């Protein structure tokens, strides 16, 4: 990417494009700012391409391949020319990294561009640990936390150790592992509204697991799971707080937790 090289700031810092994700953009912008702070701490220049909307997963997972492809092309065009693409989500990161190449495999013009993008795309905690090798964090969070692995982080992006390693650097954090870390929380995008009773049965198991862990805060790297889990915990009257892991890692926990009153 010659243009990217030319556009590098004088200090030689590498440029990260933040794929903020539609859910963070709409519902919890503070996660986006936490991600920016962490990436800047790690020594990267962060940019937010304006033409981004959504990764296209709702279309892709609903069988609407043509729209998913169109959205993928827009996203690729918007994110080419950066050293890295980072998303505070394993789900959206997985869409860019694992599914765009499949989605555009038959398109001779776009297939190589999709693959080139995919190779530079990371989930936030994965990027901070594996690429940025961030070794210190300026954050304190005296809390017993359970970390929920989103299915896409775990199985598409192979993210499991990274968020835990980072949380280990936050002062005051104690991790209580959930008994069933591999189990889906029942969000699944449009699945949770198409099959509300099944989704509820799944999230009930997750909140029971959370209660059994003794954690006072649940963290995850995916806002979809977090909104689902928070929504269920609130409906059950639980006091457990729900936050995106980036907020804790960045020391930005002044905002009300997800679903909590201000």
């Amino acid at each position, binding site marked *: 990417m010659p243009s990217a090289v030319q556009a590098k700031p004088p200090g030689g810092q590498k440029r990260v494009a933040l794929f903020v994700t539609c859910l963070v953009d709409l519902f919890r912008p503070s996660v986006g700012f936490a991600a920016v702070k962490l990436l800047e701490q790690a020594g990267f220049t962060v940019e937010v391409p304006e033409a981004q*909307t959504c990764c296209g997963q*709702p279309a892709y997972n609903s069988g609407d391949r043509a729209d998913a492809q169109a959205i993928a092309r827009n996203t690729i065009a918007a994110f080419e020319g950066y050293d890295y693409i980072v998303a505070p989500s394993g789900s959206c990161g997985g869409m860019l990294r694992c599914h765009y190449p499949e989605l555009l495999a038959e398109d001779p013009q776009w297939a190589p561009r999709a693959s080139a993008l995919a190779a530079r795309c990371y989930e936030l905690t994965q990027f901070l640990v594996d690429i940025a090798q961030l070794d210190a964090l300026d954050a304190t969070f005296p809390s017993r936390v359970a970390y929920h692995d989103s*299915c896409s982080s775990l*199985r598409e992006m192979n993210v499991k150790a990274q968020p835990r390693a980072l949380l280990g650097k936050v002062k005051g954090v104690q991790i209580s592992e959930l008994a069933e870390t591999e189990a889906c929380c029942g969000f699944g995008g449009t699945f949770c509204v198409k099959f509300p009773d099944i989704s509820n049965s799944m999230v009930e198991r997750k909140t029971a697991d959370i209660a059994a862990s003794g954690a006072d805060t649940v963290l995850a790297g995916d806002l979809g799971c977090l909104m689902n889990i928070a929504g269920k915990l609130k*409906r059950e009257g639980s006091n457990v707080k729900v936050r995106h892991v980036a907020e804790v890692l960045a020391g930005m926990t002044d905002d009300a937790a997800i679903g909590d009153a201000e």
Partner: protein
Amino acid sequence: MLHPNSNAFTAESTKAIADPQLQEALGVLRTQSIPNRLKAANNLAEFEQLRDRARDLKDHILGHLDQYLLQFEEQVKSSGGQVHWCSDAESARQTILKLCREAGAKTVTKGKTMIGEEIGINDFLAENGIEPVETDLGEYIIQLRHETPSHIIGPALHVTKRQVEETFREHHTDLDAGRSLEEPAALMAEARAKMRHRYFEADVGITGANFLIAETGSTVIVTNEGNGDLTQMLPKMHIALTSIEKVVPTLDDAMTLLRILPRSATGQELSVYVTFSTGPRRQIDPDGPKAFHVVLLDNGRSAYLGGPMQEMLRCIRCGACMDHCPVYHAVGGHAYGWVYPGPIGAILTPALVGVENAKHLPNASSLCGRCESVCPVRIPIPKLLRHWREEEFTRAITPATQRTGLGVWAWFAQRPAMYRLAARWSMRILRWSAGARGRFKSLPLAEGWTRHRDFPAPQGKTFQDQWRARSRR
């Protein structure tokens, strides 16, 4: 063919979730099936490599299926048996009926066969005056209860021990009403005693087959109770009822699959019995059936060879995908409405009965991918579920409301400026409606969410708006 009820999935799943006995019975998946498989997989250093080999082997077979099936038939013939090629359920039923009549059968014992369920053989034989007797404990229980299997290797998985006891007391009225059936072993012993004489009465024994070995013409069954051996050894005729994708080239290949099948299925290193049957009784054999028949069912499978769904035909029927599926954990097997439940059922059922007759199944998944992560032959189940979703979308089987909603969203998602504008105003309105409460108890158009959960309110201004304001400063 067993009539599919898969389009009632949504209603059936809601009923299943509200059934406390079913929920109790399903608990075994999380407390036993999952940890048992994990332990077995971890105890075999080359387990992951074996999965790769098994996948490659099955892909090779599916690429040369005609060749291996013809070789298998040759070998069956040369050992004195016969192969019956059946393109659909009806021809398989008629073939079996004809064979049973040739044997003058009044009673047929049966080992576990999912293909038997696929062609509805029990009801068909009964309608024609031949009594089918299930000999697998789970199958025996559900036969007494007039139910269908809810799991491909644990047909009575949906039944609690207490319900089995009730069923036995209701049907075994000749036994002492005061007997204790507290221990699972007592239930097992009672079923055994009830079944034993039936093996000797039977004129025909029908089993399934886990593998068909092309180089020897053998059929292989993998069992734990020993009922399969008695079913195929004692009557004068053995019919192996099976489907075309079960063939493997050699005994060695069968061994490769045998190393991963029980580990994936029950967490056993090997099942208690693995029985190889090659032809009818020879002169020198002390026992065995006088006639050996293989009924080989296609039932639509061959149409998927060489196409985008071919990978589903790798399946060796271990059941690990359903054991690990959170949707199966929630609703059990019957809600799926046909023979094969769980993730493999959600891709196989649309293939075999038509996607329009199983339209919910590919959608009833959060695509969590845990099935693929445990599948011994690495079937990419989420990818294949998406394939059916695309087929439904293309053929307009997807409901119009969903298509319209998706269309509106996709229109905005492809126009960033319009998208930002719509996002800005909708989030402002949502934030304003929520006030300082931080969440909604109910929300128009979001009943699916708020039926069981609160809906977290947005923080207010979108990230993109705030970022641009920050950049301008």
